[in-house]
């Protein structure tokens, strides 16, 4: 029987406080991550109801969504200062704009060792799926549920259906986890995993470092997944060992024993299964207004007539109008005005190293703006210590303060109308990066190569031997 239990089932059952028939389950939150984008109404309701934060010790806050990036002299918006004040009132640890642990919520959780295998992690952000890369049960919640988690340390949840995505084969050189997940989304669509908990497994996953696994789980949100999971292995443990909040000494040994049990049974019963071959993936770029409107960098934009249902065809036509692109245009003919390297998808040290590897000794094409925004203060310090900042600025790029920046454009900083933005972020929705902005989702390698060419480029041309 146990062999048919999936990792999701194990995590679900371990966090289920109670479950009445015909009711959603009461699920315990081991780690509640709060950020400046979605907290305000929750704290207002908490205080209006004269409720206390049940477990401030399990609640951590950071500022990321609304920080000024390009012009750090701009005053902090009230939602940023308000979060610090709210956390102070309730005894919650807050990593404010200048704190050494500040950063994008999905970057700092893992980086500080707060995110651990077997924990449940709730955060009012759709990319909370990122934490599943550690075998943690990630809950994407809304602001009302932030209130619930603050007041009771629990949320109500319906059990998700389960989906196994097995990815075998090795990624080619110059092809990243970002390209892989874009290829999967392009093939299966943005609702392919709707309502599902997705578990990624297979030889390609085992070969990935934690940063790449986080990129993959992060973008499972763009498959519609409610949560994503990767079973922890030696790489997970190596990553966590010695992190500030990771267990220490004998606690670490005990934790290892528990974490090693966090795998799906050999005959794990999934509601659906997909298989994907990593060998076939090329560097990817999107041409439209959903992450599923993608193609390889050596391909051309497909004709809308070739798309299946009439509804989808119409959506593709509308996307092309918005993007100012035509069917048959090759990826490498697509112009680039802005290059954004950052976001919870691709702003970790490995991402910056990859981009810097392409940009070292090269210049950004005339007229192209390159903005590099490290995911956290720790990533910023590490990158500066390694000389990566120098590489980006010498190439003509800007080096921003850690935050969500141009991924969500919630800070009032936009790419201009009709500007093409080669972006390592996760969403190319219409107007997402500013009114009229045209997002082309790419990997950090492709972003860097495109900055040099001033057009979408195949990064494999720029890789050192």
């Amino acid at each position, binding site marked *: 029987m146990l062999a048919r239990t999936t990792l999701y089932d194990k*995590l679900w059952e*371990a*966090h289920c*406080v*109670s479950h009445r028939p*015909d*009711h959603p389950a*009461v699920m*315990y939150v*081991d780690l509640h991550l709060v950020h400046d*984008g*979605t907290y*305000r*109404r929750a704290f207002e309701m908490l205080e209006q*109801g004269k409720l206390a934060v*049940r477990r401030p010790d399990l609640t951590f806050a950071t500022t990321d*969504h*609304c920080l000024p990036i390009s012009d750090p002299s701009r005053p902090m918006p009230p*939602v940023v200062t308000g979060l610090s004040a709210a956390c102070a009132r309730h005894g919650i640890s807050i990593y404010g704009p200048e704190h050494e642990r500040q950063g994008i919520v999905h970057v700092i959780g893992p980086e500080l060792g707060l995110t651990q*295998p*077997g*924990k449940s992690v709730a955060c*009012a*952000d*759709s990319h909370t799926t990122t934490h599943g890369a550690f075998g943690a049960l990630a809950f*994407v*919640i*809304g*602001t*009302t549920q932030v209130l*619930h988690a603050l*007041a*009771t*340390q*629990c949320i*109500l949840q*319906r059990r998700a259906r389960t989906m196994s995505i097995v990815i075998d084969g090795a990624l080619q050189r110059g092809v990243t986890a970002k390209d892989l997940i874009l290829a999967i989304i392009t093939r299966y669509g*943005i*609702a392919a995993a*709707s*309502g599902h908990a997705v578990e990624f497994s297979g030889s390609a996953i085992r070969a990935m470092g934690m940063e790449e696994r986080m990129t993959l789980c992060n973008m499972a949100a763009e498959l*519609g997944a*409610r949560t994503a999971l990767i079973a922890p292995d030696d790489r997970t443990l190596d990553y966590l060992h010695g992190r500030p909040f990771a267990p220490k000494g004998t606690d670490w040994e005990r934790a290892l024993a*528990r974490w090693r049990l*966090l795998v799906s049974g050999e005959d794990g019963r999934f509601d659906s299964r997909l298989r994907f071959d990593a060998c076939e993936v090329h560097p990817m770029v999107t041409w439209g207004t*959903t992450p599923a409107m993608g193609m390889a960098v050596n391909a051309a934009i497909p004709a809308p007539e070739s798309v299946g249902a009439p*509804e989808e065809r*119409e*959506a593709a036509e*509308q996307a092309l109008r918005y993007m100012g692109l035509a069917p048959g245009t090759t990826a490498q003919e697509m112009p680039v005005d802005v290059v954004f390297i950052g976001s919870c998808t691709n702003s970790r040290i490995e991402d910056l190293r990859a981009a810097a590897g392409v940009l070292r000794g090269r210049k950004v094409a005339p007229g192209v703006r390159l903005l590099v925004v490290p995911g956290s203060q720790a990533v910023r310090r590490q990158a500066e210590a390694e000389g990566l900042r120098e590489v980006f600025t010498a190439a003509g790029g800007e080096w921003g303060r850690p935050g969500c920046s141009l991924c*969500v*454009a*919630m800070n*009032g900083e936009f790419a201009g109308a009709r500007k093409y933005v080669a972006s390592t972020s996760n*969403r190319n*929705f*219409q*107007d*997402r990066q500013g*009114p009229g902005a045209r997002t082309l989702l790419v990997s950090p390698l492709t972003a860097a190569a495109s900055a040099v060419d001033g057009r979408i480029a195949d990064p494999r041309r720029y890789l050192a031997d």
Partner: protein
Amino acid sequence: MASFRHLRSRLVPLLGPDIDTDQIIPAQYVNAAGTEALARALFRRLRDQNARFVLDRPEMAGRTVMLVGSNFGCGSSREAAAWALSAWGIRALIGRSFNATFSGNCLQNGLLPIAAPLEAHGALCEAIGAGADPEIAIDLERDRVEFTELGIAFSVGLEPFARELLLRGMDELHYLLDRRAEIEAYETRGGPLQ
């Protein structure tokens, strides 16, 4: 939260697949405070780009049900999408399918997302496309959605717990606060994986 029992309205049609929450409310307005500001933020970019956008047509004023396509509310989990729809006056959505986080957020705010069966949804879209302007009657107590003029009817299809909360105008917080003894017991025995 006000209780939801029944309502009658004509539809605000906003068809097309995969309408994401960035379109429903752009990120810069997510922290807008007050009903008026949230209502103004609803579909702000699309309204700015098109003076004839459906929400701003005079005949749409006062309507409380929106007809949408598939995978409505995908993308960002921002609850402000539900707040903005409510602020404009929308109390129910009829669609082919909804993003799970989005529909959860709607229910937390007394906004009812109803997934219509394929055939009924197709017939509705076709009728609207042909110029019909039918009235919808939603009766949550009887679990019934009816378009009498079109001869279309289906069930609301909400799970019993969510339906009960809406009918009674209750929110999940009170249910959770009532589980205090269970939560304490869980904390005392320690989560098995921690």
